[in-house]
């Protein structure tokens, strides 16, 4: 028995009555807050965030991450450090109990995730980041869901960035290889023409060659002027391309600085980069 009587797992295995497939876990979809002007500061910042999932304990403690125009910011840290949680907090998928999230001169702490999308945030989750039953093209169209203008230019740009997707555009995305799926995922997020792009471990589970290529593409995206906030398991490689780096430990900021500084910091090297 769990704490919430509605979330007991009893009887949920029966496929003839219950469909667990695709159920959401994100919180905050029903949040009805408004953005408040809050000029100054970095382009996107999760400022001293404290919070956790549901009614559970705090996972983040006074954690701050930020990214500025034209930058790549990378969050690294050991497993269970709260890296993904920090990203989700910035995106409003869990309750930030203390602290604020600000984007482009506005306080968006009380906005729902879908409202943040219309404010110009793009997010690529680590897993389940594509619509597997839909074609590549439909995935991109769904990425552009909030746009009412003609988005064929953007789609052409995405196809230019990831040419393989153009060939496979009528295939169900679930049939693609791991690296191609990640391309679809990033492409989907780019379709809104986001003002900032957030990537949660974009290279998880892909081969080293594909990983290098993905990093190249990400740099390419950053060069078009979109600031990128990224969580990475491959700390060394990520910090090499990062303008700014955050090392999280147990939901707290342990180190922060430019990518180069962190790579050079002996303590960071010893603890997180394997010497």
């Amino acid at each position: 028995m769990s704490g919430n009587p509605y979330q007991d797992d009893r009887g949920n295995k029966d496929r003839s009555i219950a469909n667990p497939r695709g159920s959401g876990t994100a919180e905050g979809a029903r949040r009805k807050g408004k953005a408040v002007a809050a000029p100054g500061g970095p382009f996107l910042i999760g400022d001293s965030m404290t919070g956790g999932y549901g009614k559970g304990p705090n996972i983040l403690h006074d954690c701050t991450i930020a990214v500025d125009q034209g930058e790549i910011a990378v969050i690294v840290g050991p497993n269970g450090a709260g890296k993904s949680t920090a990203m989700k907090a910035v995106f409003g998928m869990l309750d930030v109990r203390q602290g604020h999230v600000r984007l482009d001169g506005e306080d968006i702490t009380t906005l729902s995730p879908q409202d943040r999308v219309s404010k110009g945030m793009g997010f690529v989750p680590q897993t389940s980041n594509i619509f597997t039953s839909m074609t590549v093209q439909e995935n991109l169209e769904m990425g552009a869901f909030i746009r009412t203008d003609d988005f064929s230019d953007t789609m052409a740009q995405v196809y230019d960035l990831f040419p393989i997707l153009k060939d496979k555009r009528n295939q169900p995305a679930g049939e693609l290889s791991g690296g191609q799926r990640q391309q679809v995922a990033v492409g989907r997020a780019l379709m809104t023409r986001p003002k900032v792009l957030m990537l949660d471990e974009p290279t998880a589970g892909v081969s080293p060659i594909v990983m290098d290529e993905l990093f190249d593409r990400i740099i390419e995206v950053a060069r078009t002027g979109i600031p990128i906030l990224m969580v990475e398991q491959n700390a060394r490689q990520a910090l090499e391309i990062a303008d700014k780096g955050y090392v999280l430990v147990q939901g707290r900021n342990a180190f922060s600085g430019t990518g180069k500084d962190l790579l050079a910091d002996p303590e960071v090297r010893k603890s997180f980069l394997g010497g």
Partner: protein
Amino acid sequence: MNETVKNTLLFAVVGGLILLTGFMQSWNAALLILNMGLISAIMALGVNLQWGFAGLFNIGVMGFVALGGLAAVLVSMPPTSEAWAAGGTGIILGLLLGAATVAAAVILHKRMRPGAVRVMVLLAVVVIGFFVYRAVLDPSVAAIEKVDPATTGYLGGLGLPVVLAWPIGGLLAAGAAWLIGKTALGLRSDYLAIATLGIAEIIIAVLKNEDWLSRGVKNVVGIPRPLPYEIDLQNDPAFVERAAGLGMDPVMASTLYVKLGYAVLFLIVLVVLMWMAQKALHSPWGRMMRAIRDNEVAAEAMGKDVTRRHLQVFVLGSAICGIAGAMMTTLDGQLTPGSYQPLRFTFLVWVMVIVGGSGNNFGSVLGAMLIWFLWVQVEPMGVFLLELVTSGMSDGAFKSHLLESAAHMRLFTMGLVLILVLRFSPRGLIPEK
């Protein structure tokens, strides 16, 4: 207020409601509610075992209850010797052939390599088997059904005491549950709910159509009783005298005596089953069952045979429903296959379990008594309410329509109760500890 006090109070309230019925309407009505309430409590115990302990979604309660009812007929009715002479052997042979066909198909399915050949062979076995079975069975069925169709026209039973039918009804239901569970729980994904829904309909269809077995929609009436008949009591001077001693009229006294007798019998069964269910709940077996329910993956990783345990509990729970079914048919004194409806026999039992508190045996009993009380009493209450509402209206089609429809308030009320409980007290009136 501590938990025991609260629970005792809840039971006292339900008891009070039944007593109130006795004072306000009649003691016969109160005892009727009590008797069916006790039977419902047993059904609810069965469903609670499956849903509350193990998280198995059985929506075929009706089928198992009906099988219990069939057991009452097969055990207690006198055999129709003419019918046995006319087609008894044919029926037995036919059924054996049918079983052999199914067994052959299952064995072939297991032994042969998958492929087109297997499919063809299986099809051939099943089709030929089916026609042979029908060829043997049909003439016997026709012969049996010709034997005095107005009163018998079926094989009859064994002529044994009807109380024996209770455990046998349980066994019959257990057998059916084993077959369903073996098939539905063995599938790669779990499809128990739809399987039970289907099998219940099939059982009812069999009871309605196989006249040689259960007289179908002609109903079996006059099932022997475990208690004396009212008329015999009234003709018994000793009884009349005792009734007079209590200041009661003998007709009234005899009906109450019989109903009280049933109540005692049912209460004994309920207490025994309750004791067993409580023992099971607190045994290592019960703890394991709940562990599986709450996290099947972890239990499986710990080497528990989840499917086997589920099959066990499914069979046990269904057997309890079968016992209740046999008891109900005994109380009614007749088997009327047409009266089995899923809303009444499956979903109402579910309402009882959810309202009482899934996973808590006492909760199920309380829920059963309370919901059964409502089921019976909402109708007169609805009539009363609508009479009140319409008292100001002028007579007309609308008013008479409203008054006529009062009977349908009970379904509405059951739904409302279920939804309100789920919303405001999702673990039921007496939650699982």
